[in-house]
């Protein structure tokens, strides 16, 4: 789960990390009022869950409240990478001496969180990672020990941070670590962490990703989820515990298991087709879940055919067939459907679908080829 910049920075500030004065606004009027309260120059920052806001014109500096209102009006009417801007953060503008990158994420190979830091922060950090990886310090933290003070010093020394900032940098890094651990984050990032002209370290931007699997023990974080920015079909899918990702093709896919779902999409492509979605109904899905999945697929007007590939294990093919029949009765789909059932209770499932006017297949290659043909013929 992604958090907005303003949400991330609010969490950071609770861990003692200095952030600019500012607040979030939903209207240009609010933005003006916040600018008045702050006085002086402010930055108006679109709050959308994608990168590249600056380049897209979603971050602007205003010199007075009137300009703040004007810019907020503009930004609140933008779409960035397809996402409408519904909120802006109005922060006091900072005078920047240096931009540092500071982030924590999980290194799956090392099985440990890793702290990354570079004196060359700001928007160019990905370029630095590509071209000058040695300019990025990486320090792993043993999750059983937590961060050690000496590690904060090693990092400060590693980026040649002037010594007057070491203490403050250590406090910020310890705070970021604690925010990362306490919130089951998979990413906690400050970019840039600035040295201001008045000699302070300030987190100018913030980003957090939260482990969805840990939300059961972080109910206060679940409430921060911004569903506005997900496709409605993905929100609907999540409600039923389905993993659904919308794509641009025209063959809807319903598969059990993420690996098999990807392999099914791959084979469609291999035979010249184009998948309309990734959809994993998971293990042991019942008829309800299957029906919901089918409704979600059919809600996409691009879909010209559907491929069902179910390899019964925990999942029972007869349950899947029951779900398909339920959904068909309700939605009355007009697109051709190719179904392949193998494994647990496949016979029963096939028998149930015998009269449903579906195209059946024995092998995955056969099913894929039939689905591609059906989509083209339709």
């Amino acid at each position, binding site marked *: 789960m992604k958090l907005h910049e303003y949400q991330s920075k609010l969490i950071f500030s609770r861990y003692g990390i200095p952030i600019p004065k500012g607040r979030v606004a939903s209207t240009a009027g609010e933005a003006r009022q916040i600018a008045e309260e702050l006085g002086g120059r402010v930055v108006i920052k679109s709050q959308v869950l994608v990168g590249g806001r600056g380049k897209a014109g979603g971050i602007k500096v205003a010199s007075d409240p009137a300009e703040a209102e004007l810019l907020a009006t503009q930004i609140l009417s933008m779409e960035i990478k397809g996402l409408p801007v519904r909120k802006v953060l109005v922060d006091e503008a900072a005078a920047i001496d240096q931009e540092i990158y500071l982030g924590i*994420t999980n290194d799956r190979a090392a099985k440990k969180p890793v702290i990354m830091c570079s004196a060359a922060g700001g928007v160019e950090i990905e370029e630095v990672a590509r071209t000058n990886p040695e300019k990025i310090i990486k320090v792993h933290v043993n*999750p059983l020990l937590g961060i050690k003070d000496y590690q904060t010093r090693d990092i400060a020394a590693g980026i040649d941070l002037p010594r007057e900032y070491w203490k403050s940098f250590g406090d910020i890094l310890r705070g970021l670590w604690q925010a990362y651990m306490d919130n089951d984050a998979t990413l906690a990032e400050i970019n840039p962490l600035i040295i201001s002209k008045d000699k302070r370290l300030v987190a100018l931007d913030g980003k957090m990703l939260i482990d969805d699997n840990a939300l059961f023990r972080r109910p206060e974080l679940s409430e921060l989820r911004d569903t506005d920015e997900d496709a409605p079909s993905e929100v609907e899918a999540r409600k039923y515990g389905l993993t659904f990702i919308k794509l641009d093709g025209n063959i809807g896919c319903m598969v059990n298991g993420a690996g098999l779902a990807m392999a099914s999409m791959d084979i469609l*492509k*291999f035979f010249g087709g184009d998948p309309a979605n990734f959809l994993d109904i998971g293990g*042991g899905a019942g008829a309800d879940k299957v029906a919901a999945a089918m409704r979600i697929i059919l809600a996409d007007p691009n879909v010209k055919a559907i491929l069902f590939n179910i390899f019964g294990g925990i999942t029972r093919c007869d349950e899947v067939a029951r779900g398909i029949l339920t959904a068909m009765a309700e939605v009355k789909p007009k697109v051709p459907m190719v179904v392949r059932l193998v494994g647990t209770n496949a016979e029963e499932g096939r028998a149930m679908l015998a009269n449903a006017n579906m195209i059946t297949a024995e092998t*995955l290659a056969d099913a894929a080829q039939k689905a591609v043909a059906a989509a083209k013929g339709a």
Partner: protein
Amino acid sequence: MSILVNKETRLLVQGITGSEGLFHTRQMVAYGTNVVAGVTPGKGGQWVDEKIPVFDSVKIAKEATGANTSIIFVPARFAADSIFEAADAGIPFIVCITEGIPVSDMMRVRNYIDQKNVRLLGPNCPGLLTPGEAKVGIIPGNIAIPGNVGIVSRSGTLTYEVLYALKQVGMGSSTTVGIGGDPVNGTNHIDVLRMFEDDPHTDKIVMIGEIGGSDEEKAAEFIATRMTKPVVGFIAGQTAPAGKRMGHAGAIVEGGEGTADAKIRALEAAGVKVARHPEEIPQLLK
């Protein structure tokens, strides 16, 4: 004839009285797996199907029954505790089926058990199957026959697909191992490849990977430098969208690795024949 599990396996089921645990215990018993004990805290003293004693803790169960392998079916929020319990009780091989465990839990688990003489398989995996000997997990037993092909896979149902395709042409498996798709897990491709290389009853190997991480790239290097047996590969996710990268940090940590193309290139460079779709695998093994 196999790696990790066989006729000598004495299996303990953690979470045996839950609905999933009970269902799959019965499947495993029906397959012939030697399930010697179950654990459900608070239900010690009960029996499952009048055959399998239930205990309050792994420690007691192990002492009473000599269990040497444990399989975990408990819900995600309790799963890490169950792994710690099995590891601390001295169970040398632990299979965790549970999916949805927080990654921070798994990092603590890994950093702890790496100090011990314990092998963990999973979590979020289908377990493993040595056809004709033991089924420890949820891989349907009837889709596989004994044979000389070792299979290691990050995926669940995709693995079934491969086993099924092999069976259609009369090919069987020595052992099939599902390592699971979680970012932090107990056993990776290389660990299993090494065991297959050393197993006299495995002649050929199928390795099934997925996009994400760098496990397959590392496996490719291992195959190139250490393995004598032929390996056929398959990577799922060629058409998957680039996906939600973990901010700048993800890009920095994972670098260019993790795409299907990169994995396929690495495997092919290591001399692995890479199938274009799962049903091509049997002919590549010939």
